[in-house]
Every structure is written in C-alpha cells, then in structure tokens.
C-alpha cells in the first residue's frame, strides 16, 4: 500500500469507527460525540491554516461565528430554510475569510496573531452592538420546526449524530486529499520555509490566502451546522475563547496531522466536562492544558506518535 492509499484507509476506518460508536455507546456519550464532531470539524479547519500552512491565527472564532450568524440571521429574520441558510453561512464565512485574510496576511508572525485577534474581537463586539439582529449577549434559539432538512428533523438525536459524522467525515476526507495534493505540499513547504517556496516560483501570498479562505469556509460550515443541529446561536461562540479553543485542540491532538484535531477536541471536551462537574473554574483545565502542551507536547499526541512509533500516520 502506498502512503496515499494507506492514509485513505486510515480515514475510512476512523469514519467507520465513528459510525459504529452510535450502536455501542450510551446516549450521553453519543450526544457529546455529535457536538465533538462538529467542533472537531472547526478544529480541522483551523489545522489547515495553523498545522499545514504554519499561520498561527488567533481569530478563527470570527469564521465560526460568521457561519453561525450568517445561517441564524437569515433563518430567523428572513425565514430562509435550512439548506440555503447553511450555504449562506458558509459563503459569509468565506467572504469574511477573504477580506480579513487579505489584510492580515500582509503581516507575519506575532503581528499576524495580534491582527487576527483584533479582527475577531471586532467581530465579537459587532455581535454585541447589532443586538437588534443578533440579540446581543443572550443570543437566540432557532425553532425546532425550522431545523429540518428536506423533511428530516435535525434536532433528532440520531440525525444529529450522523449529521456530525457526515460533516466531520467529509472534512476529514477532503483535507486528507488536499494535503496530499500538490497544493497541500506547497502549503507545507510554505510552513517549512516560506522564502524557499517563494524562490521556487510559488506565489506564497496567494497560496496562503487560498488556505485561509478554505479554512474560513470550513470553520463557517461547522459554525452553521452547530447552530442548525443544536438550535442555538450565541455571542460566546464569537468570543476570544472560541479562537483559543481550536488552537488548543489542534495543538494537543497534533498540528499538521489529519486526525489530531479530532483527538484533541475529544480529550479536551471530556476534560472540561469532567472538570465542570467539580468546579466553576473549569477553564483552569484549558489553561493548564495549553501550558503543558506548549512545554511538553509541541508535536501533539498524534504528532508525537507519528514521530516515535507510527511513521505512516497521515
């Protein structure tokens, strides 16, 4: 088996495993897993920019929220049905990605981090400011009747779970394909040595912008799906925390690996879930995990595994 086939086989096996989980796990965990899958899609989108292209963005909440609010607002105020609203959400996120990306990519390194952070902060403040449309801090609930896709009730536990599998599965296969393509290799080359990539004739700025737009669209797809499946659109998803979380998930799971984001999201979700039973200060877990991952696991779980034992991991 060549590496490409092997990667595909691993990805298909993971998807099969996720499908299998529905039949064995108790409802509490499948409910969690549905949420995790949507968030892991968000993390995968982040990983494309951070893990593969080497751009440390601190503003991906902006794209997640653009998808979420794009969908939410046209459904709530325009009475648009689920599918076109979802497409609209994705388009919103991609557009926001294009505009902020084109500006932010003029900077690099620390300045890039701060610029993306500031744009996302401005987006969050806009959500608060335009309260007539967004209901500000409170957010709004999307009525259950509206949450159906060609007659399928998206609020149903099982539908929700498999919608999550579909979303994550297709993003996994898509990103798996992308990073093995010539374009994906170019992104990795930019991460490894931007100047060298430029001196091979690659238009580095353009490649980075394309990566940001794809990532923004996928993050928006996850945000819109989250609103659709769980019926809530809220300002907290636009806040800085939702820019930090995908970074943490990716970092912990393994940046630049296709399965790292899923694993990182899974581990953190349950850690936070467990901690919030004990204390109100459950975000402590997030902080400690960030510091420990920076200090001891710079390659993340999957990245370390790949380096030490399983070289063939995608």
């Amino acid at each position, binding site marked *: 088996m060549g590496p490409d086939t092997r990667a595909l086989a691993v990805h298909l096996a993971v998807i099969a495993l996720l499908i299998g989980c529905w039949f064995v796990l108790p409802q509490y965990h499948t409910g969690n897993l549905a949420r995790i899958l949507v968030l892991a899609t968000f993390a995968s989108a982040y990983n494309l920019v951070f893990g593969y292209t080497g751009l440390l963005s601190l503003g991906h909440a902006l794209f997640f929220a653009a998808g979420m609010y794009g969908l939410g607002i046209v459904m709530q105020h325009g009475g648009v049905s689920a599918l076109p609203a979802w497409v609209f959400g994705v388009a919103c996120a991609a557009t926001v990605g294009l505009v902020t990306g084109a500006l932010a990519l003029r900077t690099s390194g620390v300045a890039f981090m701060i610029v993306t952070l500031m744009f996302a902060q401005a987006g969050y403040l806009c959500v608060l400011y335009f309260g007539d449309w967004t209901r500000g801090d409170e957010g709004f609930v999307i009525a259950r009747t509206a949450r159906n896709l060609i007659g399928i009730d998206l609020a149903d536990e099982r539908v929700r779970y498999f919608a999550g599998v579909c979303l994550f599965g297709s993003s996994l296969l898509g990103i798996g394909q992308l990073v093995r393509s010539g374009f994906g290799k*170019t992104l*990795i080359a930019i991460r490894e040595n931007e*100047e*060298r990539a*430029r*001196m*091979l004739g690659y238009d580095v700025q353009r490649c980075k912008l394309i990566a940001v737009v794809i990532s923004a669209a996928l993050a928006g797809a996850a945000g819109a799906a989250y609103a659709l499946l769980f019926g809530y659109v809220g300002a907290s998803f636009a806040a800085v925390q939702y820019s930090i979380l995908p970074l943490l998930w990716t970092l912990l799971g393994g940046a630049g690996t296709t399965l790292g984001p899923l694993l990182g999201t899974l581990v953190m979700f349950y850690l936070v879930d467990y901690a919030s039973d004990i204390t109100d200060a459950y975000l402590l877990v997030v902080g400690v995990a960030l510091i420990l991952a920076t200090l001891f696991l710079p390659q993340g779980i999957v990245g370390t595994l790949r380096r030490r034992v399983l070289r063939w991991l995608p």
Partner: protein
Amino acid sequence: MTRPVLETRHLSKSFGGVDAVKDVNLAVHEHEVRALIGPNGAGKSTLVSLVCGRLSPTAGTVHFDGQDVSSLPAHARIRLGIAYTFQITSVFSELSVFENVALSVRRAIASSNAGMRQRKRAIRERAMMALDRVGLADARDRPAGDLAYGHQRLLEIAMGLAQAPRLFIMDEPTQGLALDEIERFKTLIGELSSSSTILLIEHNMDVVMDTAHRIAVLDAGELIGDGNPQDIQQDARVQAAYLGTDTGPASA
C-alpha cells in the same frame, strides 16, 4: 557573442544611506558560467537578491532575456526561468528528499497543459533525474532535515536543476561540501553550461578557476573587474581589493 540572458543597468541598493550595491552594470550571456567574487560584505548576495527580486533596488533596472523585470515580484521572475539557491541551506526539512525536488518540478511545469497522469509521471521522472545527477537518488524517501549538511546543499542544487532554469544563480554552493563532492559539483557545472546559464557566487578559487568562463569582481558594492579568469587574476585593482582584504580560502 550571444545576447545577454541577464543584464543589470546602473543597479544600486542602499540600506539607510550605506551603499551595498553601487551602479552595477553586469551582462551575463547564454551558456556562460559567470563567477561573482569579492571579499566578504562586498555586496554579492545583495546583488543577486536584487536580480531575483528578493530586494527592490534603490535605482537601476534588471533585464532578463531582454525583458525589464524590475517591477516583477520574486516568484514571477523565478517563473520566467531563474533558479536560485540560498547561501544558507534552505530545504523543507519535514518533507522527503523526493518531495523537495518534486515541489520544484511541479511549479516549473505548472503552466503545461498535460493531463493529470502525464503530469504525475513527468514530475516523478524529472525529480528523480535531478536527484540522480547530484547522487541523492537513494535518499529519496528520507526527510530532508535528516540529511547531512553537505547532502542538504546538494539537495538544494537538485531543486534548482529540476526547475530546468535558463539562468541558475547559486550563492556559495560548495560551502560545506567534501572534496569529492566539490569535484562532482565541478563536473556538474560543466555539463549544465550546455543547457543553462550560470551565475555563481563562490569563495573557493579552485572552483572558480576550473569552472568560470568569466569572472566579475565586486568590492564595496562596486564592480571593479569583469573579464576572463586570466585577466582577472592579473588585474592589479582586483588583487589590491580582493587579496589584500580577504585572507580566507579565497587567497589560496
């Protein structure tokens, strides 16, 4: 004589008022191996950076193949048929040796309209051919970062070769190479000059004397000599500037 592949006209670059390159007129002709020498800090790297578009000049123009490329960004100049290897080793260390070269081929044939399958084969063939020429074919699957320093330099040259450039600019390519690798490099340059034009920044005078058709000498940003190796060796100005200030390997 053939028309110049590369020409600089009154090219100057100053950093904060200090001239790094001053009014350089240089013409490099087809199939020529041109060495660019000069003491440390003479402005050699700055000059080739201006040629490639990594830096923009304070004054003057760069012409490639008769076309004024002064306003083109670096990547666009590379696409016209310039290859450039860095003075400091620059490879994509997490990627395999093969993929390093494949990246170079993929960009070079991006504009061809061959089918997917054909293109894939062309990439593989050209990449392997380039690796073969520098003797790295056996290392194709290793991560580039794991190669020994000298081999990384050879990999860089292979990346340049794979581009099949019209003009190949090398910034101190033999630095850190073993003696037998240097011999191999000299042969390679000889072979290359039949298909390509080479601009070579080099400190090793052995390599320069054995490979270069013409030598340009830069001192304090100014071109102080430009001619065939014998003339340059005997040029008093060059000797004063060059041998007088540099006691490194160049004086050997």
